Protein backbone atom coordinates (compact mmCIF):
# COMPACT_ATOMS: atom_id res chain seq x y z
CA UNK A 1 0.00 0.00 0.00
CA UNK A 2 1.16 3.52 -0.69
CA UNK A 3 -0.65 6.82 -0.55
CA UNK A 4 -2.16 7.64 -3.89
CA UNK A 5 -5.09 9.62 -5.17
CA UNK A 6 -7.44 6.65 -4.97
CA UNK A 7 -6.94 6.06 -1.29
CA UNK A 8 -6.27 9.51 0.15
CA UNK A 9 -9.43 9.45 2.20
CA UNK A 10 -8.55 6.07 3.67
CA UNK A 11 -4.98 7.07 4.46
CA UNK A 12 -6.14 10.28 6.10
CA UNK A 13 -8.48 8.24 8.30
CA UNK A 14 -5.57 6.01 9.30
CA UNK A 15 -3.46 9.05 10.07
CA UNK A 16 -6.28 10.45 12.15
CA UNK A 17 -6.36 7.25 14.22
CA UNK A 18 -2.63 7.30 14.73
CA UNK A 19 -2.95 10.83 15.98
CA UNK A 20 -5.74 9.81 18.33
CA UNK A 21 -3.41 7.28 19.93
CA UNK A 22 -0.44 9.66 20.05
CA UNK A 23 -2.45 12.52 21.53
CA UNK A 24 -4.10 10.18 24.04
CA UNK A 25 -0.85 8.70 25.23
CA UNK A 26 0.95 12.03 25.42
CA UNK A 27 -1.92 13.20 27.59
CA UNK A 28 -1.57 10.11 29.79
CA UNK A 29 2.12 10.86 30.13
CA UNK A 30 1.54 14.44 31.21
CA UNK A 31 -1.24 13.44 33.62
CA UNK A 32 1.14 10.97 35.19
CA UNK A 33 3.86 13.61 35.47
CA UNK A 34 1.34 15.88 37.20
CA UNK A 35 0.36 12.98 39.51
CA UNK A 36 -3.23 13.32 38.33
CA UNK A 37 -3.12 9.62 37.59
CA UNK A 38 -1.03 6.97 39.27
CA UNK A 39 -0.21 3.36 38.59
CA UNK A 40 1.98 1.37 36.27
CA UNK A 41 1.72 2.91 32.82
CA UNK A 42 3.39 1.59 29.67
CA UNK A 43 3.12 3.83 26.66
CA UNK A 44 3.52 2.89 23.03
CA UNK A 45 4.36 6.32 21.64
CA UNK A 46 6.21 5.64 18.40
CA UNK A 47 4.46 2.30 17.78
CA UNK A 48 1.14 3.64 16.48
CA UNK A 49 1.60 2.35 12.93
CA UNK A 50 1.46 -1.25 14.13
CA UNK A 51 -1.83 -0.88 15.98
CA UNK A 52 -3.54 1.15 13.28
CA UNK A 53 -2.03 -0.67 10.33
CA UNK A 54 -3.10 -4.04 11.70
CA UNK A 55 -6.46 -3.33 13.28
CA UNK A 56 -7.92 -1.06 10.59
CA UNK A 57 -8.48 -4.23 8.55
CA UNK A 58 -10.61 -6.04 11.11
CA UNK A 59 -14.32 -6.49 11.58
CA UNK A 60 -16.04 -5.45 14.78
CA UNK A 61 -16.63 -9.12 15.66
CA UNK A 62 -12.95 -10.07 15.33
CA UNK A 63 -11.16 -10.59 18.62
CA UNK A 64 -8.15 -8.57 19.71
CA UNK A 65 -5.87 -9.31 22.64
CA UNK A 66 -3.14 -6.98 23.83
CA UNK A 67 -0.26 -6.88 26.25
CA UNK A 68 0.80 -4.40 28.90
CA UNK A 69 1.42 -1.64 26.31
CA UNK A 70 -2.00 -1.65 24.70
CA UNK A 71 -3.79 1.69 24.94
CA UNK A 72 -3.13 2.08 21.24
CA UNK A 73 -4.50 -1.35 20.36
CA UNK A 74 -7.74 -0.58 22.18
CA UNK A 75 -8.15 2.78 20.44
CA UNK A 76 -7.32 1.27 17.06
CA UNK A 77 -10.01 -1.39 17.61
CA UNK A 78 -12.52 1.33 18.31
CA UNK A 79 -12.50 1.79 22.07
CA UNK A 80 -14.09 4.93 23.46
CA UNK A 81 -11.35 7.32 24.58
CA UNK A 82 -13.39 8.72 27.45
CA UNK A 83 -13.99 5.32 28.99
CA UNK A 84 -10.39 4.32 28.32
CA UNK A 85 -8.93 7.40 29.98
CA UNK A 86 -11.34 7.04 32.88
CA UNK A 87 -10.17 3.47 33.38
CA UNK A 88 -6.53 4.54 33.39
CA UNK A 89 -7.48 7.22 35.90
CA UNK A 90 -9.14 4.55 38.07
CA UNK A 91 -12.61 6.05 37.87
CA UNK A 92 -16.02 4.43 38.12
CA UNK A 93 -16.84 5.46 34.55
CA UNK A 94 -13.89 3.56 33.10
CA UNK A 95 -14.34 0.51 30.93
CA UNK A 96 -13.72 -1.77 33.89
CA UNK A 97 -15.09 0.48 36.59
CA UNK A 98 -11.56 1.19 37.74
CA UNK A 99 -10.80 -2.44 38.57
CA UNK A 100 -8.51 -3.11 35.62
CA UNK A 101 -6.45 -0.02 34.96
CA UNK A 102 -3.92 0.63 32.25
CA UNK A 103 -2.61 -2.92 31.93
CA UNK A 104 -5.98 -4.68 31.95
CA UNK A 105 -8.12 -2.76 29.51
CA UNK A 106 -11.17 -4.63 28.26
CA UNK A 107 -13.52 -3.05 25.72
CA UNK A 108 -15.67 -6.01 24.84
CA UNK A 109 -18.21 -3.92 22.93
CA UNK A 110 -15.68 -3.44 20.15
CA UNK A 111 -13.90 -6.78 20.41
CA UNK A 112 -10.90 -5.63 22.42
CA UNK A 113 -11.01 -8.70 24.62
CA UNK A 114 -8.30 -7.91 27.11
CA UNK A 115 -4.84 -6.64 27.73
CA UNK A 116 -2.70 -8.31 30.38
CA UNK A 117 -0.04 -7.40 32.87
CA UNK A 118 1.75 -10.67 32.21
CA UNK A 119 4.21 -10.86 29.32
CA UNK A 120 2.83 -13.42 26.88
CA UNK A 121 -0.29 -13.91 29.01
CA UNK A 122 -2.84 -13.24 26.31
CA UNK A 123 -1.27 -15.39 23.60
CA UNK A 124 -3.06 -18.59 24.72
CA UNK A 125 -6.27 -16.60 25.25
CA UNK A 126 -6.17 -15.47 21.63
CA UNK A 127 -5.85 -19.11 20.61
CA UNK A 128 -9.10 -19.74 22.44
CA UNK A 129 -10.87 -16.94 20.60
CA UNK A 130 -9.49 -18.33 17.34
CA UNK A 131 -10.68 -21.79 18.35
CA UNK A 132 -14.18 -20.44 19.03
CA UNK A 133 -14.08 -18.55 15.72
CA UNK A 134 -13.19 -21.69 13.84
CA UNK A 135 -16.03 -23.60 15.51
CA UNK A 136 -18.53 -20.87 14.73
CA UNK A 137 -17.57 -20.68 11.03
CA UNK A 138 -18.45 -17.02 10.58
CA UNK A 139 -15.02 -16.04 9.31
CA UNK A 140 -13.96 -14.35 12.53
CA UNK A 141 -10.33 -14.27 13.56
CA UNK A 142 -8.19 -13.34 16.55
CA UNK A 143 -5.24 -10.99 16.69
CA UNK A 144 -2.79 -10.88 19.56
CA UNK A 145 -0.09 -8.28 20.19
CA UNK A 146 2.98 -8.95 22.28
CA UNK A 147 6.51 -7.63 22.50
CA UNK A 148 9.88 -9.17 21.79
CA UNK A 149 10.13 -10.06 25.48
CA UNK A 150 7.32 -12.59 25.08
CA UNK A 151 9.30 -14.60 22.56
CA UNK A 152 11.31 -16.20 25.33
CA UNK A 153 8.27 -17.17 27.40
CA UNK A 154 6.48 -20.51 27.55
CA UNK A 155 2.99 -19.43 26.46
CA UNK A 156 4.45 -18.03 23.23
CA UNK A 157 5.91 -21.36 22.20
CA UNK A 158 3.04 -23.55 23.36
CA UNK A 159 0.60 -21.30 21.54
CA UNK A 160 2.49 -21.12 18.27
CA UNK A 161 2.68 -24.88 18.20
CA UNK A 162 -1.02 -25.41 18.91
CA UNK A 163 -2.13 -22.69 16.48
CA UNK A 164 -0.09 -24.26 13.72
CA UNK A 165 -1.20 -27.80 14.57
CA UNK A 166 -4.90 -26.93 14.52
CA UNK A 167 -4.71 -24.23 11.80
CA UNK A 168 -6.38 -21.67 14.03
CA UNK A 169 -7.34 -18.28 12.56
CA UNK A 170 -5.01 -16.13 14.64
CA UNK A 171 -2.58 -13.41 13.65
CA UNK A 172 0.40 -13.15 16.00
CA UNK A 173 1.80 -9.63 15.94
CA UNK A 174 5.14 -9.20 17.59
CA UNK A 175 5.97 -5.57 18.25
CA UNK A 176 9.69 -5.94 18.38
CA UNK A 177 10.69 -2.63 19.91
CA UNK A 178 14.17 -3.82 20.71
CA UNK A 179 13.87 -3.75 24.48
CA UNK A 180 12.39 -6.35 26.76
CA UNK A 181 11.69 -4.15 29.76
CA UNK A 182 15.15 -2.66 30.44
CA UNK A 183 17.51 -4.75 28.37
CA UNK A 184 18.04 -5.19 24.65
CA UNK A 185 16.74 -8.29 22.95
CA UNK A 186 20.32 -9.51 22.51
CA UNK A 187 20.48 -10.00 26.28
CA UNK A 188 17.47 -12.32 26.12
CA UNK A 189 18.06 -14.53 23.14
CA UNK A 190 20.47 -15.44 20.38
CA UNK A 191 17.52 -15.27 17.98
CA UNK A 192 17.68 -12.01 16.06
CA UNK A 193 14.27 -12.07 14.43
CA UNK A 194 11.39 -13.57 16.38
CA UNK A 195 9.72 -14.50 13.12
CA UNK A 196 12.28 -17.31 13.00
CA UNK A 197 10.40 -19.05 15.81
CA UNK A 198 7.16 -18.96 13.81
CA UNK A 199 8.87 -20.55 10.84
CA UNK A 200 10.11 -23.33 13.12
CA UNK A 201 6.51 -24.09 13.99
CA UNK A 202 5.45 -24.02 10.34
CA UNK A 203 3.67 -20.68 10.51
CA UNK A 204 4.03 -18.23 7.61
CA UNK A 205 5.95 -15.28 9.00
CA UNK A 206 7.35 -11.98 7.88
CA UNK A 207 9.35 -9.18 9.44
CA UNK A 208 8.29 -5.68 8.45
CA UNK A 209 9.15 -2.11 9.26
CA UNK A 210 6.71 -1.46 12.07
CA UNK A 211 7.06 2.28 11.70
CA UNK A 212 5.77 2.07 8.14
CA UNK A 213 2.00 2.09 8.23
CA UNK A 214 1.75 0.85 4.67
CA UNK A 215 4.12 -2.07 5.23
CA UNK A 216 2.12 -3.19 8.27
CA UNK A 217 -1.14 -2.86 6.34
CA UNK A 218 0.22 -4.92 3.47
CA UNK A 219 1.40 -7.72 5.73
CA UNK A 220 -1.87 -7.67 7.65
CA UNK A 221 -3.97 -7.68 4.47
CA UNK A 222 -2.40 -10.98 3.50
CA UNK A 223 -2.65 -12.36 7.01
CA UNK A 224 -6.34 -11.55 7.34
CA UNK A 225 -7.13 -13.09 3.97
CA UNK A 226 -5.21 -16.22 4.91
CA UNK A 227 -6.99 -16.57 8.26
CA UNK A 228 -10.44 -15.94 6.83
CA UNK A 229 -9.75 -18.52 4.12
CA UNK A 230 -9.09 -21.12 6.81
CA UNK A 231 -5.40 -21.44 6.07
CA UNK A 232 -4.30 -21.12 9.68
CA UNK A 233 -2.20 -18.68 11.64
CA UNK A 234 0.15 -15.97 10.40
CA UNK A 235 2.99 -14.29 12.28
CA UNK A 236 4.03 -10.70 11.65
CA UNK A 237 7.05 -9.22 13.35
CA UNK A 238 7.01 -5.43 13.32
CA UNK A 239 10.33 -3.71 13.98
CA UNK A 240 9.59 -0.57 15.91
CA UNK A 241 10.65 1.45 18.91
CA UNK A 242 8.94 2.90 21.92
CA UNK A 243 9.91 6.52 22.38
CA UNK A 244 9.20 6.41 26.11
CA UNK A 245 10.74 4.21 28.78
CA UNK A 246 9.42 0.79 29.69
CA UNK A 247 7.05 2.48 32.14
CA UNK A 248 6.29 6.11 32.82
CA UNK A 249 8.99 7.30 35.19
CA UNK A 250 11.59 4.93 33.74
CA UNK A 251 14.75 7.05 33.26
CA UNK A 252 15.64 4.65 30.39
CA UNK A 253 19.39 5.11 30.89
CA UNK A 254 19.96 1.82 29.07
CA UNK A 255 19.27 3.57 25.80
CA UNK A 256 21.55 5.99 23.91
CA UNK A 257 20.11 9.38 23.03
CA UNK A 258 21.52 9.01 19.54
CA UNK A 259 19.44 5.88 19.15
CA UNK A 260 16.34 7.78 20.12
CA UNK A 261 17.17 10.51 17.59
CA UNK A 262 17.51 7.89 14.85
CA UNK A 263 14.10 6.48 15.65
CA UNK A 264 12.61 9.95 15.83
CA UNK A 265 13.48 10.34 12.16
CA UNK A 266 11.37 7.24 11.52
CA UNK A 267 8.35 8.57 13.39
CA UNK A 268 5.41 6.67 11.89
CA UNK A 269 3.02 9.60 11.96
CA UNK A 270 5.44 12.01 10.34
CA UNK A 271 6.13 9.45 7.61
CA UNK A 272 2.48 9.17 6.64
CA UNK A 273 2.12 12.94 6.74
CA UNK A 274 5.17 13.28 4.46
CA UNK A 275 3.72 10.75 2.04
CA UNK A 276 0.47 12.65 1.84
CA UNK A 277 2.22 15.96 1.39
CA UNK A 278 4.50 14.61 -1.30
CA UNK A 279 1.43 13.66 -3.32
CA UNK A 280 0.12 17.15 -2.63
CA UNK A 281 -2.95 15.56 -1.13
CA UNK A 282 -2.87 17.62 1.97
CA UNK A 283 -1.65 20.96 3.18
CA UNK A 284 0.22 21.58 6.40
CA UNK A 285 -2.84 23.33 7.77
CA UNK A 286 -5.03 20.35 7.11
CA UNK A 287 -2.54 17.99 8.73
CA UNK A 288 -2.34 20.26 11.72
CA UNK A 289 -6.11 20.22 12.00
CA UNK A 290 -6.00 16.41 12.37
CA UNK A 291 -3.52 16.74 15.20
CA UNK A 292 -5.54 19.47 16.88
CA UNK A 293 -8.73 17.46 16.66
CA UNK A 294 -6.98 14.47 18.27
CA UNK A 295 -5.58 16.61 21.05
CA UNK A 296 -8.98 18.13 21.66
CA UNK A 297 -10.48 14.65 22.02
CA UNK A 298 -7.70 13.64 24.42
CA UNK A 299 -8.42 16.78 26.45
CA UNK A 300 -12.10 15.94 26.45
CA UNK A 301 -11.34 12.41 27.65
CA UNK A 302 -9.21 13.90 30.42
CA UNK A 303 -11.93 16.29 31.52
CA UNK A 304 -14.47 13.48 31.48
CA UNK A 305 -12.18 11.25 33.53
CA UNK A 306 -11.07 13.71 36.14
CA UNK A 307 -14.66 14.85 36.65
CA UNK A 308 -15.81 11.25 37.06
CA UNK A 309 -16.42 9.76 40.50
CA UNK A 310 -14.11 7.26 42.12
CA UNK A 311 -15.55 3.78 42.39
CA UNK A 312 -17.36 3.06 45.63
CA UNK A 313 -15.67 0.70 48.06
CA UNK A 314 -19.08 -0.87 48.53
CA UNK A 315 -18.76 -2.24 44.99
CA UNK A 316 -15.35 -3.80 45.48
CA UNK A 317 -16.71 -7.33 45.72
CA UNK A 318 -19.63 -6.89 43.34
CA UNK A 319 -17.91 -8.41 40.33
CA UNK A 320 -15.79 -11.25 41.65
CA UNK A 321 -18.30 -13.90 40.57
CA UNK A 322 -20.79 -13.70 37.74
CA UNK A 323 -24.36 -14.55 38.63
CA UNK A 324 -25.26 -17.34 36.28
Amino acid at each position, binding site marked *: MAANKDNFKEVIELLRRMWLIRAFEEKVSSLYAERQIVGLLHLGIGQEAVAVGALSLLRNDDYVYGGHRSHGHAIAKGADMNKLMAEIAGRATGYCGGK*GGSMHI*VAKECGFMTATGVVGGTIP*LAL*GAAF*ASKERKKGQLAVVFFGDGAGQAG*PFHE*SLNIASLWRLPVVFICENNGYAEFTPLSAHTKIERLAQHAKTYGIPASTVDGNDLFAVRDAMTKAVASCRAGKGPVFIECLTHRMRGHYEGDPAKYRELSQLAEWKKKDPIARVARALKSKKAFTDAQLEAIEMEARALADKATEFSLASPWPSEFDVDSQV*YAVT
Partner: protein
Amino acid sequence: MRDLAYFEAKFEALDEIMTADERVHLINGTFLSLSPHRHVYQNLQKKFRERMIAPPISELGFCGLATGAAMAGLRPIVDLSTGSFIYEAWPQVANEAANAFSMSGGQTRVPVVFHLFHGLRGGGAAQHSGSPQAMLWNVPGLEIVIPSSPRDVKGLLKTAVASDNPTIFVDHTRLLDIRGEVPENDKPIPFGVADIKRAGGDVTLIATSYTVQVCLGAAAKLANEGIDVEVVDPRTLVPFDLATILSSVEKTHRVVIADETHQSCGVAAEIAARIAETGFDKLKTRIRRVSTLDVPVPYSPPLEAHIGPTESRIMDAVRAAVA
Protein backbone atom coordinates in the same frame (compact mmCIF):
# COMPACT_ATOMS: atom_id res chain seq x y z
CA MET B 1 -33.69 -46.32 43.19
CA ARG B 2 -31.01 -46.74 40.56
CA ASP B 3 -27.47 -47.60 41.59
CA LEU B 4 -24.47 -46.43 39.53
CA ALA B 5 -20.71 -46.46 39.80
CA TYR B 6 -19.18 -43.02 40.25
CA PHE B 7 -17.49 -43.10 36.83
CA GLU B 8 -20.80 -44.08 35.20
CA ALA B 9 -22.64 -41.21 36.85
CA LYS B 10 -19.91 -38.82 35.78
CA PHE B 11 -20.07 -39.94 32.17
CA GLU B 12 -23.85 -39.85 32.17
CA ALA B 13 -23.47 -36.21 33.16
CA LEU B 14 -20.92 -35.51 30.41
CA ASP B 15 -23.17 -37.18 27.85
CA GLU B 16 -26.23 -35.19 28.90
CA ILE B 17 -24.23 -31.95 29.05
CA MET B 18 -22.78 -32.39 25.57
CA THR B 19 -26.12 -33.41 24.12
CA ALA B 20 -27.80 -30.35 25.58
CA ASP B 21 -25.20 -27.74 24.67
CA GLU B 22 -23.10 -27.61 21.51
CA ARG B 23 -20.82 -25.00 23.05
CA VAL B 24 -19.30 -27.62 25.33
CA HIS B 25 -15.96 -29.11 24.30
CA LEU B 26 -13.87 -31.61 26.21
CA ILE B 27 -10.20 -30.77 26.10
CA ASN B 28 -7.30 -33.07 26.96
CA GLY B 29 -7.64 -36.19 29.15
CA THR B 30 -10.28 -38.87 29.48
CA PHE B 31 -11.70 -37.70 32.83
CA LEU B 32 -10.77 -41.16 34.12
CA SER B 33 -7.05 -40.86 34.82
CA LEU B 34 -5.59 -44.34 34.43
CA SER B 35 -8.80 -46.14 35.38
CA PRO B 36 -9.53 -49.30 33.34
CA HIS B 37 -12.98 -47.96 32.38
CA ARG B 38 -11.71 -46.25 29.24
CA HIS B 39 -14.57 -47.66 27.21
CA VAL B 40 -16.96 -45.04 28.57
CA TYR B 41 -14.73 -42.31 27.15
CA GLN B 42 -14.60 -44.09 23.82
CA ASN B 43 -18.39 -44.43 23.81
CA LEU B 44 -18.67 -40.69 24.30
CA GLN B 45 -16.19 -40.14 21.48
CA LYS B 46 -18.45 -42.04 19.11
CA LYS B 47 -21.13 -39.40 19.69
CA PHE B 48 -19.06 -36.23 20.04
CA ARG B 49 -15.73 -36.89 18.36
CA GLU B 50 -15.44 -33.40 16.88
CA ARG B 51 -15.94 -31.79 20.27
CA MET B 52 -13.43 -33.95 22.14
CA ILE B 53 -10.01 -32.49 21.63
CA ALA B 54 -6.62 -34.02 22.36
CA PRO B 55 -4.04 -31.23 22.57
CA PRO B 56 -0.26 -31.57 22.87
CA ILE B 57 1.23 -31.73 26.38
CA SER B 58 1.00 -27.97 26.83
CA GLU B 59 -1.03 -27.33 29.97
CA LEU B 60 -0.33 -23.62 29.92
CA GLY B 61 -1.30 -23.41 26.27
CA PHE B 62 -4.50 -25.43 26.37
CA CYS B 63 -5.77 -24.05 29.68
CA GLY B 64 -5.27 -20.59 28.20
CA LEU B 65 -6.95 -21.70 25.01
CA ALA B 66 -9.94 -22.97 26.98
CA THR B 67 -10.08 -19.72 28.95
CA GLY B 68 -9.97 -17.66 25.76
CA ALA B 69 -12.59 -19.86 24.11
CA ALA B 70 -14.83 -19.37 27.16
CA MET B 71 -14.34 -15.60 26.91
CA ALA B 72 -15.41 -15.89 23.27
CA GLY B 73 -18.60 -17.82 23.98
CA LEU B 74 -17.78 -21.55 24.26
CA ARG B 75 -18.05 -23.60 27.47
CA PRO B 76 -14.99 -25.87 27.52
CA ILE B 77 -14.27 -28.55 30.10
CA VAL B 78 -10.56 -29.20 30.45
CA ASP B 79 -9.25 -32.38 32.04
CA LEU B 80 -5.85 -31.74 33.57
CA SER B 81 -5.91 -35.36 34.70
CA THR B 82 -3.28 -35.44 37.47
CA GLY B 83 -4.06 -32.46 39.67
CA SER B 84 -0.45 -31.41 40.08
CA PHE B 85 -0.34 -30.60 36.38
CA ILE B 86 -2.44 -27.51 37.00
CA TYR B 87 0.76 -25.95 38.34
CA GLU B 88 1.97 -25.92 34.71
CA ALA B 89 -1.06 -23.80 33.84
CA TRP B 90 -1.04 -21.58 36.91
CA PRO B 91 -0.62 -18.25 35.07
CA GLN B 92 -3.65 -18.87 32.88
CA VAL B 93 -5.87 -20.30 35.64
CA ALA B 94 -4.92 -18.09 38.58
CA ASN B 95 -3.86 -14.90 36.82
CA GLU B 96 -6.06 -14.74 33.71
CA ALA B 97 -9.22 -16.86 34.11
CA ALA B 98 -9.80 -16.08 37.78
CA ASN B 99 -9.27 -12.33 37.43
CA ALA B 100 -11.05 -11.68 34.16
CA PHE B 101 -14.58 -11.01 35.40
CA SER B 102 -13.52 -8.60 38.13
CA MET B 103 -10.68 -7.01 36.19
CA SER B 104 -13.00 -6.27 33.28
CA GLY B 105 -15.56 -4.68 35.58
CA GLY B 106 -17.97 -7.50 34.80
CA GLN B 107 -17.60 -7.40 31.01
CA THR B 108 -15.93 -10.77 30.59
CA ARG B 109 -17.48 -14.04 31.73
CA VAL B 110 -15.27 -17.10 31.71
CA PRO B 111 -17.43 -20.25 31.74
CA VAL B 112 -14.62 -22.79 31.74
CA VAL B 113 -14.26 -25.91 33.89
CA PHE B 114 -10.83 -27.20 34.91
CA HIS B 115 -11.22 -30.80 36.01
CA LEU B 116 -8.45 -32.56 37.89
CA PHE B 117 -7.77 -35.61 40.05
CA HIS B 118 -6.17 -34.67 43.33
CA GLY B 119 -4.63 -36.56 46.16
CA LEU B 120 -3.06 -39.79 47.25
CA ARG B 121 -3.48 -42.41 44.56
CA GLY B 122 -1.04 -45.18 45.38
CA GLY B 123 2.54 -44.60 44.30
CA GLY B 124 1.98 -41.23 42.68
CA ALA B 125 4.79 -39.76 44.77
CA ALA B 126 5.28 -36.04 45.24
CA GLN B 127 4.65 -34.85 41.68
CA HIS B 128 1.50 -36.83 40.88
CA SER B 129 -0.41 -36.63 44.16
CA GLY B 130 -1.00 -32.92 44.61
CA SER B 131 -4.13 -31.42 46.11
CA PRO B 132 -4.03 -27.89 44.71
CA GLN B 133 -7.54 -26.93 45.86
CA ALA B 134 -6.29 -25.16 48.99
CA MET B 135 -3.98 -22.93 46.96
CA LEU B 136 -6.79 -22.31 44.50
CA TRP B 137 -9.14 -21.38 47.35
CA ASN B 138 -6.77 -18.47 47.92
CA VAL B 139 -7.55 -17.13 44.44
CA PRO B 140 -10.76 -15.07 44.35
CA GLY B 141 -12.76 -15.55 41.18
CA LEU B 142 -12.59 -19.34 41.00
CA GLU B 143 -15.41 -21.64 42.07
CA ILE B 144 -14.23 -24.91 43.58
CA VAL B 145 -16.31 -28.06 43.43
CA ILE B 146 -15.32 -31.26 45.21
CA PRO B 147 -17.73 -34.19 44.94
CA SER B 148 -17.61 -37.39 46.94
CA SER B 149 -20.43 -39.60 45.63
CA PRO B 150 -21.96 -40.75 42.31
CA ARG B 151 -25.02 -38.58 42.77
CA ASP B 152 -22.93 -35.53 43.61
CA VAL B 153 -20.50 -35.88 40.74
CA LYS B 154 -23.33 -35.90 38.25
CA GLY B 155 -25.30 -33.07 39.77
CA LEU B 156 -22.30 -30.87 40.46
CA LEU B 157 -20.73 -31.35 37.04
CA LYS B 158 -23.91 -30.09 35.44
CA THR B 159 -23.90 -26.99 37.61
CA ALA B 160 -20.19 -26.44 36.94
CA VAL B 161 -20.73 -26.35 33.19
CA ALA B 162 -23.76 -24.10 33.55
CA SER B 163 -21.79 -21.66 35.70
CA ASP B 164 -20.50 -18.48 34.09
CA ASN B 165 -17.42 -18.54 36.33
CA PRO B 166 -14.16 -20.43 35.96
CA THR B 167 -14.70 -23.56 38.02
CA ILE B 168 -12.19 -26.02 39.40
CA PHE B 169 -13.68 -29.51 39.52
CA VAL B 170 -11.66 -31.46 42.06
CA ASP B 171 -12.02 -35.20 41.59
CA HIS B 172 -10.33 -38.26 43.09
CA THR B 173 -9.39 -41.49 41.34
CA ARG B 174 -10.28 -43.52 44.44
CA LEU B 175 -13.89 -42.44 44.00
CA LEU B 176 -14.28 -43.74 40.45
CA ASP B 177 -15.49 -47.23 41.40
CA ILE B 178 -17.63 -46.30 44.38
CA ARG B 179 -21.30 -47.14 43.88
CA GLY B 180 -24.30 -45.19 45.01
CA GLU B 181 -27.81 -44.07 44.28
CA VAL B 182 -28.30 -41.78 41.30
CA PRO B 183 -31.97 -41.11 40.51
CA GLU B 184 -32.96 -40.97 36.84
CA ASN B 185 -33.46 -37.38 35.64
CA ASP B 186 -31.83 -36.07 38.78
CA LYS B 187 -31.65 -32.28 39.07
CA PRO B 188 -28.32 -30.41 38.99
CA ILE B 189 -26.99 -29.79 42.50
CA PRO B 190 -26.65 -26.10 43.32
CA PHE B 191 -23.28 -24.82 44.51
CA GLY B 192 -22.95 -23.77 48.14
CA VAL B 193 -25.19 -26.45 49.61
CA ALA B 194 -23.47 -28.84 52.00
CA ASP B 195 -24.79 -32.36 52.35
CA ILE B 196 -25.17 -34.32 55.58
CA LYS B 197 -23.75 -37.63 54.43
CA ARG B 198 -24.52 -39.28 57.77
CA ALA B 199 -26.62 -37.82 60.55
CA GLY B 200 -25.34 -38.01 64.11
CA GLY B 201 -25.41 -36.14 67.38
CA ASP B 202 -22.00 -36.41 69.06
CA VAL B 203 -19.38 -35.00 66.70
CA THR B 204 -19.48 -32.98 63.47
CA LEU B 205 -16.98 -34.63 61.13
CA ILE B 206 -16.43 -32.41 58.10
CA ALA B 207 -14.74 -33.98 55.10
CA THR B 208 -14.26 -33.49 51.37
CA SER B 209 -13.73 -35.68 48.33
CA TYR B 210 -12.59 -39.27 48.90
CA THR B 211 -12.04 -38.52 52.57
CA VAL B 212 -15.85 -38.34 52.94
CA GLN B 213 -15.92 -42.04 52.11
CA VAL B 214 -13.12 -42.73 54.59
CA CYS B 215 -15.08 -40.81 57.23
CA LEU B 216 -18.25 -42.79 56.56
CA GLY B 217 -16.27 -45.97 57.22
CA ALA B 218 -14.82 -44.46 60.39
CA ALA B 219 -18.26 -43.32 61.53
CA ALA B 220 -19.69 -46.82 61.13
CA LYS B 221 -16.94 -48.23 63.33
CA LEU B 222 -17.24 -45.45 65.88
CA ALA B 223 -20.96 -46.18 66.15
CA ASN B 224 -19.96 -49.56 67.58
CA GLU B 225 -18.06 -47.66 70.25
CA GLY B 226 -21.16 -45.64 71.01
CA ILE B 227 -19.98 -42.45 69.28
CA ASP B 228 -22.63 -40.97 66.99
CA VAL B 229 -20.83 -39.08 64.23
CA GLU B 230 -22.41 -36.61 61.82
CA VAL B 231 -20.51 -36.49 58.50
CA VAL B 232 -20.89 -33.19 56.67
CA ASP B 233 -19.66 -32.75 53.10
CA PRO B 234 -19.47 -29.12 51.93
CA ARG B 235 -19.45 -30.33 48.26
CA THR B 236 -18.23 -26.93 47.10
CA LEU B 237 -15.47 -24.91 48.75
CA VAL B 238 -16.39 -21.81 46.75
CA PRO B 239 -19.14 -20.95 47.43
CA PHE B 240 -18.97 -22.40 50.94
CA ASP B 241 -22.00 -23.41 53.00
CA LEU B 242 -21.01 -22.42 56.51
CA ALA B 243 -24.61 -22.30 57.74
CA THR B 244 -25.20 -26.05 57.45
CA ILE B 245 -21.94 -26.72 59.28
CA LEU B 246 -22.76 -24.28 62.07
CA SER B 247 -26.16 -25.80 62.62
CA SER B 248 -24.51 -29.20 62.94
CA VAL B 249 -22.01 -27.76 65.43
CA GLU B 250 -24.90 -26.22 67.35
CA LYS B 251 -26.11 -29.78 67.86
CA THR B 252 -22.80 -31.62 68.49
CA HIS B 253 -20.53 -28.88 69.92
CA ARG B 254 -17.55 -30.85 68.60
CA VAL B 255 -15.69 -30.59 65.29
CA VAL B 256 -13.18 -32.75 63.46
CA ILE B 257 -12.15 -31.81 59.93
CA ALA B 258 -10.61 -34.45 57.68
CA ASP B 259 -9.13 -33.53 54.33
CA GLU B 260 -6.33 -34.55 52.00
CA THR B 261 -4.74 -31.16 51.43
CA HIS B 262 -1.57 -30.44 53.36
CA GLN B 263 -2.19 -29.15 56.85
CA SER B 264 -0.70 -25.65 56.60
CA CYS B 265 -3.15 -23.23 54.98
CA GLY B 266 -5.07 -26.29 53.89
CA VAL B 267 -8.79 -26.81 53.37
CA ALA B 268 -9.19 -27.95 56.99
CA ALA B 269 -7.37 -24.84 58.19
CA GLU B 270 -9.77 -22.51 56.40
CA ILE B 271 -12.86 -24.41 57.54
CA ALA B 272 -11.55 -24.44 61.12
CA ALA B 273 -10.94 -20.69 60.99
CA ARG B 274 -14.47 -20.00 59.75
CA ILE B 275 -16.04 -22.13 62.46
CA ALA B 276 -13.82 -20.58 65.13
CA GLU B 277 -14.66 -17.05 63.97
CA THR B 278 -18.40 -17.45 63.84
CA GLY B 279 -19.24 -20.48 65.96
CA PHE B 280 -16.69 -20.41 68.78
CA ASP B 281 -19.39 -20.13 71.44
CA LYS B 282 -20.95 -23.36 70.19
CA LEU B 283 -17.79 -25.41 70.75
CA LYS B 284 -17.17 -27.49 73.86
CA THR B 285 -13.69 -28.60 72.79
CA ARG B 286 -11.00 -27.41 70.40
CA ILE B 287 -11.36 -28.04 66.67
CA ARG B 288 -9.25 -30.95 65.42
CA ARG B 289 -7.74 -31.29 61.95
CA VAL B 290 -6.79 -34.52 60.19
CA SER B 291 -4.89 -33.38 57.12
CA THR B 292 -2.02 -34.66 55.04
CA LEU B 293 1.26 -34.14 56.89
CA ASP B 294 3.33 -31.20 55.68
CA VAL B 295 5.77 -33.29 53.67
CA PRO B 296 6.09 -33.88 49.93
CA VAL B 297 4.05 -37.02 49.23
CA PRO B 298 6.41 -40.01 49.50
CA TYR B 299 6.35 -42.86 47.03
CA SER B 300 6.65 -45.95 49.23
CA PRO B 301 3.20 -47.44 50.16
CA PRO B 302 3.61 -47.48 53.95
CA LEU B 303 4.94 -43.93 53.91
CA GLU B 304 2.15 -42.72 51.65
CA ALA B 305 -0.46 -44.40 53.84
CA HIS B 306 1.08 -42.84 56.93
CA ILE B 307 0.82 -39.19 55.88
CA GLY B 308 -2.83 -39.04 54.75
CA PRO B 309 -6.10 -38.68 56.64
CA THR B 310 -6.47 -42.38 57.33
CA GLU B 311 -9.43 -44.03 58.99
CA SER B 312 -7.43 -44.66 62.15
CA ARG B 313 -6.20 -41.07 62.43
CA ILE B 314 -9.75 -39.82 61.90
CA MET B 315 -11.12 -42.22 64.53
CA ASP B 316 -8.46 -41.12 67.00
CA ALA B 317 -9.37 -37.47 66.43
CA VAL B 318 -13.07 -38.16 66.93
CA ARG B 319 -12.40 -40.14 70.11
CA ALA B 320 -10.28 -37.29 71.41
CA ALA B 321 -13.06 -34.81 70.62
CA VAL B 322 -15.60 -36.68 72.71
CA ALA B 323 -13.20 -37.63 75.49
